[in-house]
């Protein structure tokens, strides 16, 4: 049985006025059905571009090389119309800022229904509405039957992200990509959303790719981790191995630099030397 997602030698190039720029360079990883993968990196690492490349949402100024296979089908070889049918249906994505990611002019119910109806034929308005309400209930939005007619600005940040998750899950995708889903949220809300993602995975068996700059968040959710830097995967390993025995100097330096909440001062002394050793920019 092939893996759910196989990324092979993925390279994403932007044409800039200073010449072509590879924001992702030769990245390869696999994701099995129902598994969870974390992609960590700092800004400019290419982690977000990777997710856009998988979904086929790269801007027109970018070009893509390599292979991205969903359940054995190479997405890069398909015409846009076929990829569009998979997008939002077999693979779904949620983004960082739920406020700007939802259209303020339409109710959340309408936006969830729209996601569902885009991929199912012969769905009546009433059926779609029922699906939307059920999706909202699944993500624990109270009073869903009434709130389905509310607008995004009437929800708090955490609730909006739940709406995004509900929207993504309405079509029961095989793969959910979450790009910094909790970065814009308060820490208590972040914990709730992460719990929700875990719960969803348990109940539906959806595979998850979690992209984050926050190593601690990734360590709580991901079974496997890819560490990216400047477009390149510097280390890949199951979470336990990566966090307890990092091999690459950059991974080690990154883990050293993470401030610990349970820790005393003194650890950060290691940072300066190790980062300089790999030529990190201050």
């Amino acid at each position, binding site marked *: 049985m092939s893996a759910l997602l196989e990324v092979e030698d993925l390279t994403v190039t932007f044409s800039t006025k200073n010449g072509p720029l590879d924001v992702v360079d030769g990245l390869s990883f696999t994701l099995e059905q129902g598994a969870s993968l974390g992609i960590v990196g700092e800004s400019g690492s290419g982690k977000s571009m990777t997710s856009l490349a998988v979904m086929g949402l790269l801007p027109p100024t970018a070009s893509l090389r390599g292979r991205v296979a969903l359940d054995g089908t190479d997405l890069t070889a398909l015409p846009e119309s076929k990829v569009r049918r998979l997008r*939002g249906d077999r693979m779904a994505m949620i983004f960082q800022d739920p406020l700007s990611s939802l259209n303020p002019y*339409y109710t959340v119910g309408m936006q969830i229904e729209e*996601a569902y109806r885009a991929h199912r034929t012969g769905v009546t308005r009433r059926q779609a509405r029922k699906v939307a309400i059920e999706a909202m209930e699944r993500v624990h939005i109270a009073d869903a039957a009434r709130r389905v007619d509310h*607008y995004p600005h009437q929800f708090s940040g955490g609730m909006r992200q739940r709406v995004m998750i509900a929207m993504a899950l309405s079509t029961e995708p095989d793969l959910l990509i979450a790009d910094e889903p909790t970065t814009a949220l308060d820490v208590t809300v972040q914990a709730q959303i992460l719990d929700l993602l875990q719960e969803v995975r348990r109940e539906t068996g959806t595979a998850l790719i979690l992209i984050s700059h926050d190593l601690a968040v990734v360590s709580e959710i991901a079974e496997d981790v890819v560490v990216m830097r400047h477009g390149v995967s510097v280390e890949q390993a199951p979470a336990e191995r990566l966090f307890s025995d990092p091999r690459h100097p950059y991974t080690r330096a990154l883990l050293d630099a993470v401030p610990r909440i349970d820790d005393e001062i003194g650890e950060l002394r290691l940072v300066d030397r190790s980062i300089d050793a790999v030529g990190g920019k201050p």
Partner: protein
Amino acid sequence: MVRFLATRLAGMVGVLFLVVLFTYAIFFALSPDPAVQICGKNCTPELIDQIRTNLGLDRPFYEQFLGFLSGLFVGSTYGTGANAIDCAAPCLGYSFQTGQPVLEMFEQRFGVSATLAVGAAVLWLLMGVTGGLVAAIKRGTWFDRAATGAALGGVSIPNYVLALVLQYVLVVKLGWLPFPQAVPFGDDPGQWFLNFVMPWLVLAFTYASMYQRLTRANVVDTLDENFVRTARAKGLAPGLVWRRHALRPALTPVVTLFGMDFAGLLGGAIIIETVFGLNGVGKMAADSITKNDQPVIMGVTLVAAFLVIVGNVIVDIVYTTIDPRVRIGARA
């Protein structure tokens, strides 16, 4: 919501009052003595004084102004006795040159201006908004460049030049349209309609250009919004993404602009009407300026200001209904 409306309406009344006061004061200070005008050729100082008293022109400013104000609500009477002239409410003044109350002159001509405004509005909305939308979607392509170029032309070319050129081409050279003739609707609807075709086109072209540019810019901005990215991520068909997610938010500023433009246009398109010989409010304004018919000029000024102010308020109210963030408060 009620509070909002009340505030806006109160503000509107306040602004209108100031406009009336300001306009009246300007005309009061600057206009030549109407008594002299009315008197005509064989004038004597006694006659002028008599007329002045008759019309109440010897009263102080504030009295005259209050008289004018009350005339707006209840009508007023010019002169006394057998020669008294009745001016029904709202009395915008009386034109001694044409021998008609200004309001009556308006009523006769408003239909033409309104027809011109409505027809042009329909055309320019269709052309401008769709043109802008398509140009935004296909930005950088030949269509976009052509549309932008045409829009630039429309904004730059003075509309009377365009009117004359169009007339020359369509009527003289190609003979597609007959020469414009003033014909009331009842007599010959076909000719009446044809009379408006060119003015509509000229007016629409000028406005469409602005709307095309505005729509294009707004849609381009909206296409970069995160919620459009979400719509694409959901796998929606491109047409749906553009129409439902990109266009709708982009239209809000267009709607507000339209309200203002349309209201202003109802007050008469001076140049277009004059060039095409349409007997609308705009032409009346142009004529009254050349003939120095003060009451009419002032009446036109007041009505135009009134329309713009009211249009402004309506636009504000409409805006609150189309943007849910304004219509419904913050979190429930």
